[in-house]
Every structure is written in structure tokens, then in C-alpha cells.
């Protein structure tokens, strides 16, 4: 019977919130098989996980090690701080945009203008026209 066992997380110190991978001791399975780990990266940085495999058969374990490296991207996060909630005509907005996610960028998805005094139904009609497809 051939088996595999073992994995090794790279960047061990930075990936303490990186979970979902199997443990070495419970990873002995029959081959062929599929490793379907649901990995969660709760950090702000890209993480990698390295699975290291050894194979044994009839009590004899090969010294050859093979690896499979998987990169797990973090969930992009952002914070938006709107300082000037009300401005006068000709005034300047001040919206601070932050994302601590590695390689993160914030995109302005849509801009909708409305008259708050208009009936709601008219604002909804306007919204559907302004949002880009």
C-alpha cells in the first residue's frame, strides 16, 4: 500500500491565522487520492503552504520527497473614512481609503447622485441608470 504523509507550512511565524490544512498524523491515506483542503488565510498577506510527500510500500519508505506548493491569497479588506459628510457647493470631499491587504487596491465601483427631496421611486429609477454595468 502506498501512503503519503506530512505537510509543512512556510512562513510559519506569519501564518498563525492560516488554517485548514491537514495534520501530519492524520494524513495517511490510500493513493490514488485527492487532497482537498479548505484553506483559510486570515492574514493580510499572501501565504504559501508546502505539502511534502513521501511514499512507502510493503514497509519500505522511499527517501525521495516530493512537494506541492499552494499559494493562498488573503481576503481583500478595506476601510473607508468619510470625513466631510456635508460640504458646500465648491467644497472638497475628504474620503480616506485604506487597504492593508498585500497588493490591495480599492476601486470606485459606482457613483450615484440624487436629490434627497425626490420621491423614493424616482431615486430608484435614477440609481439604475447611473450604476455602470
Amino acid at each position, binding site marked *: 500500500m502506498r501512503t503519503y504523509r506530512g505537510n509543512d507550512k512556510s512562513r510559519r511565524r506569519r501564518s498563525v491565522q492560516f488554517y485548514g490544512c491537514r495534520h501530519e498524523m492524520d494524513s495517511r491515506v490510500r493513493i490514488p487520492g485527492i487532497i482537498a483542503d479548505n484553506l483559510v488565510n486570515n492574514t493580510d498577506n499572501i501565504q504559501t503552504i508546502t505539502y511534502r510527500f513521501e511514499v512507502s510500500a510493503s514497509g519500505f519508505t522511499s527517501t525521495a520527497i516530493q512537494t506541492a506548493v499552494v499559494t493562498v*491569497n488573503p481576503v481583500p479588506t478595506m476601510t473607508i473614512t*468619510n470625513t466631510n459628510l456635508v460640504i*458646500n*457647493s465648491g467644497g472638497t470631499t*475628504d474620503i480616506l481609503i485604506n487597504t492593508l491587504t498585500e497588493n490591495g487596491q480599492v476601486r470606485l465601483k*459606482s*457613483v450615484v447622485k*440624487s436629490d434627497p427631496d425626490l420621491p423614493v421611486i*424616482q431615486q430608484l429609477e435614477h440609481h439604475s441608470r447611473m450604476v455602470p454595468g
Partner: protein
Amino acid sequence: MWLKQILDLPGNTAAGALFPNGTRLQDVLVDNTTSPQTITYEFEVIANGCINATTITAVVTVNPTPEMTITNNAPTLCPGASTDIQVSSVTANADENL
């Protein structure tokens, strides 16, 4: 009428613009209408080809420049007559101060 009015708020950054960390969105907005307008910016974050489906909105209210009209209907008075100065404003919530 209402459609023309709510479109008359120029100066905003167009949708699709990308911002790196620490950027400030500073639009100079002009309200050419006669009532306060709101503009809603909707943001989404992208990293390494992944998009977070949760968006965040920022709403800004823009007040119009107050305008007024003064009409002096009786620039010349006979003795005992009263002035007739008409004061008006098309701007919402406007108060004229003498």
C-alpha cells in the same frame, strides 16, 4: 425637471478609478441646483485577482450656493407711502437677512 436637477452636480471622480492604500478621494463638487444633493460613492477592494463582494459606501451631501432676488417695486416714494421691496429665493431652506 427632476432628472435635469439631480444630474447637475459635476466634479466627481468617475467610477472605475483605482486607489492604493492611503489615498484620499478629494473631489471638488459643485451643486448647480437649488437644493441639497447627495452623492454616494461605492467602493470595492481587490487584491491578487480576488474581489471582496462586500462593498462600502460613502455619502456626501452638497449644499447649493444660496441665491436671492431683490425687486424694488417702489424706488421713489411720495410722503407717507411705504417701501415695496420684494425679497425671494429659489434656494431651498434659504433665509434672507437684512
